């Protein structure tokens, strides 16, 4: 009777379990959330219907007003109120988990699923706000780029044009608000408007005259990771999920829309007694033999452009040398 001889090594005696799981999961990819932090947050009371009204009194006319001493009163003016309505909508996502997943796999799976649902809520909210900007705001085509499409690629003149539009409409920069510091710091531009752009445009952004990339800001304190650069009075934030319209340019290329806005131009409204709920359903509820349990996330949101004067934006294509 013979027996194997020599050194027992991994060639002749492989480990019984060839893999081991790391203690923690790797990061779940998440895109930059850029569409919510610059808008105003309001809350809707429960039991009062699903439509929230935001009202604004418009300025009184500055025409006339001088008294001529005759004793005749000037004509009284009726104040004008504009009402902006937003409809509350509910979104939800669920995960059903079989007990064998819990029994035989990583014990952190269940808690990871919970955090996935939390991430889903943040991402979904961001996309809903993106859709609001993309659908309900007037955009101007870029004309200063060099790619011969319409809209063209981005240029400094296009940014300046939107700044003029916002200033002509008396838009206020974000630093008018005390919480702007908390939202995106104040370096390098104190009086800044917000610009949201696709990550597909970063090459074009780098080539704009006068651009200051984030790494060149004099102070890095408090900056949001989503920020990419500063152009004129715009702080530019980028996301891979920013709005775009396929086949919408003069030449049939993808058009990217860049919302550019100041204070109080858009709002999101959360529903009191409902917003952002994460819960679980025990197995004896989900399954008749108690084998499946459930996790769910729900949130309610209404969204609105609250002042069209204070929001504008650019349509752009990306520079593609021909």
């Amino acid at each position, binding site marked *: 009777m013979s027996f194997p001889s020599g050194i027992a090594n991994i060639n002749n005696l492989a480990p019984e379990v060839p893999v081991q799981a790391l203690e923690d999961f790797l990061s779940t990819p998440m895109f930059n959330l850029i569409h919510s932090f610059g808008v105003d947050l309001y809350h809707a009371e429960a039991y009062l219907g699903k439509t929230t009204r935001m009202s604004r009194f418009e300025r009184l006319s500055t025409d006339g007003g001088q008294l001529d001493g005759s004793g005749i009163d000037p004509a009284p003016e009726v104040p004008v109120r504009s009402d902006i309505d937003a409809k509350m909508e509910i979104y939800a996502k669920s995960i059903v988990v079989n007990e064998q997943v819990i029994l035989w796999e990583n014990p952190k799976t269940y808690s990871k699923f919970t955090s996935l649902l939390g991430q889903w809520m943040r991402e979904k909210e961001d996309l809903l706000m993106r859709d609001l900007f993309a659908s309900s*705001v007037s955009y101007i085509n870029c004309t200063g780029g060099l790619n011969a499409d319409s809209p063209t690629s981005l240029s400094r003149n296009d940014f300046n044009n939107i700044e003029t539009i916002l200033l002509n409409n008396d838009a206020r920069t974000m630093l008018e608000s005390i919480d702007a510091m908390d939202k995106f710091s104040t370096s390098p531009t104190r009086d800044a408007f917000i610009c949201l752009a696709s990550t597909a445009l970063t090459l074009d952004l780098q080539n704009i005259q006068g651009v200051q990339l984030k790494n060149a800001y004099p102070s890095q304190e408090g900056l949001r990771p989503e920020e990419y650069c500063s152009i004129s009075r715009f702080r530019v934030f980028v996301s891979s999920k920013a709005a775009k319209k396929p086949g919408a340019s003069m030449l049939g290329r993808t058009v990217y829309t860049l919302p550019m806005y100041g204070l109080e131009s858009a709002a999101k409204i959360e529903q009191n007694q409902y917003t952002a709920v994460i819960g679980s359903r025990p197995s004896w509820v989900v399954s008749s033999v108690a084998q499946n349990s459930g996790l769910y996330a729900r949130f309610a949101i209404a969204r609105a452009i609250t002042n069209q004067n204070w929001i504008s934006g650019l349509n752009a294509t990306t520079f593609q040398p021909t």
Partner: protein
Amino acid sequence: MAATILTQGTFTSTGVGVKIPVPQSADYFIARNITQLATTQATGRVVTSEWYKDIFNPNDGIRWKKTNNTSAINIDLFSTSTASDGFTYVTSSPVTEAQAANAITAITAASPAVVTQTQTYSENDILRLYNTTGMLQIAGMPFEISSVSGTGYTLIGLRAAGFAAPATNGNTRRISAYEAVDPQFLYITEITQALNAVVRTSVNPARYYVEGMLIHFSVPQSFGMTEINGLTGKILSVDSTNYTVTIDIDTTGFTAFAFPASSAVPTTPLFATYAPAGARTQFNPITNVQTGYDFTFQPFRTGEFTPFMFLAAGAQSPAGSTGDVIVWQALKSETGIISANNP
């Protein structure tokens, strides 16, 4: 629970594609043409259409088609030879239809403009026009089409008599009538100089706006009437025939509105648009009529509900021909996706 019928219904075809919302999503979808099941046609018709999630490309599926002059059944895919339009499952908005870009051969410089194009579009479809050689000032704009025939259609929203030349080339791609959020911004094609200006858009504004709503104007200098840029007006009336709204802004002293020349593109700013800016209520205590609060149109809300299943229309397609009665069902499997590696 292997599969559950989530929702089901029936409709009578009008000869145009049908969108069926499937809020719970669907793993399987079936449509049966009840009318054509009872007929024998010289050219056999599709009587049953099936779709499985994660199996088919857009505009595809399985078609059960009667043989010519008999009720015998042939089964193949919508995408096989003698292809016809099938199912498209849409999960996000806005929607650009997955189809080849169709070529235009001419757009007249007339009011309204008339497009020459061999196509299968339907009345009131919305198309994005691009590569419009000779009319580059409208390239990229969406237009609603009417008076549709197999060889062309009319653009009520485009008064092109003032254009220097007709378009001699171009392409179209069909898009959804609704954006992800409504009310949406619209493209302006004409503004009159009047005490109450009349504003024409490239699509029918009655689909999105009603009397009493406010609209904010964005009109670049290249369109002439710069005085209206940045103003907000109230809609006094909506005309769905001419795609116009009448507003409470006096434009009599304003510069005339005009499209820039085609040759000025792309260096001239485009486009002229208006966007929703809320509403102003008005109440008449004598007639008890209140305007300005229309909770169907006014609030910002989801425009295009997704997911939905699009059933293409036609004799060889799921939504059938005009008059056909279609019964449909959406089903969902609880136990995983169909492409899972199950024996």
